[in-house]
């Protein structure tokens, strides 16, 4: 039979358990940098891996079909909104900027889908980060 006092130390915060304030900061930060890692660090293995696979695949497909990645100094309000979406992908955005990916102009309709894929991947990662925070705060099992 499991010892409840031991479980509290070894298991991540579950619904109804007291919030872990350190994890409430660390999980969203890591989850932003690496999609799904906020769940993995709290031992939600399947959820974390599914989030990682979905968000990384979406971003990678967007890049592979020649989508455009927005920069912070776009000037146009729509470019700024695109940047806000892209930056949600965290490490993926930083890596692709460092490698110079996603800078070619969009020349066909499917490439524009690629741009949207990367923006939505970033926005989905924001949702994933919020979910990791809720798990750490004990609001979600």
């Amino acid at each position, binding site marked *: 039979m499991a010892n409840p006092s031991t479980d509290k130390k070894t298991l991540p915060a579950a619904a109804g358990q007291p919030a872990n304030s350190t994890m409430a900061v660390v999980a969203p930060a890591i989850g932003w940098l690496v999609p799904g890692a906020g769940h993995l660090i709290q031992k939600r293995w399947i959820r974390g891996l*599914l989030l990682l696979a979905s968000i990384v695949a979406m971003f990678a*497909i967007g890049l592979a079909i020649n989508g455009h990645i927005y920069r912070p100094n776009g000037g146009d309000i729509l470019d700024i909104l695109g940047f806000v979406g892209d930056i949600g992908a965290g490490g993926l955005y930083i890596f692709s900027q460092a490698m110079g990916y996603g800078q070619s102009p969009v020349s066909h309709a*499917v490439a524009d889908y690629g741009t949207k894929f990367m923006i939505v991947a970033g926005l989905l990662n924001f949702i994933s980060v919020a979910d990791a925070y809720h798990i750490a705060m004990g609001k979600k099992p």
Partner: protein
Amino acid sequence: MNQSLALSHFTAALLFALFASVVFGITQRNTPRDMFRYGLYCFAMFVGGVFAAGWLMWLLRR
């Protein structure tokens, strides 16, 4: 980066629906069963929306 992947519009829409549904299912529900059901529901809504929009555009084109 040169284009290395050629997707049709429909395939792109299906992939979008799949990935978005997985994330919505996991983040918007609390139990694995509810997550799976909600993910399926979102996927069906996305794909249904694609077909509805396709038929609407076909009607408008006539």
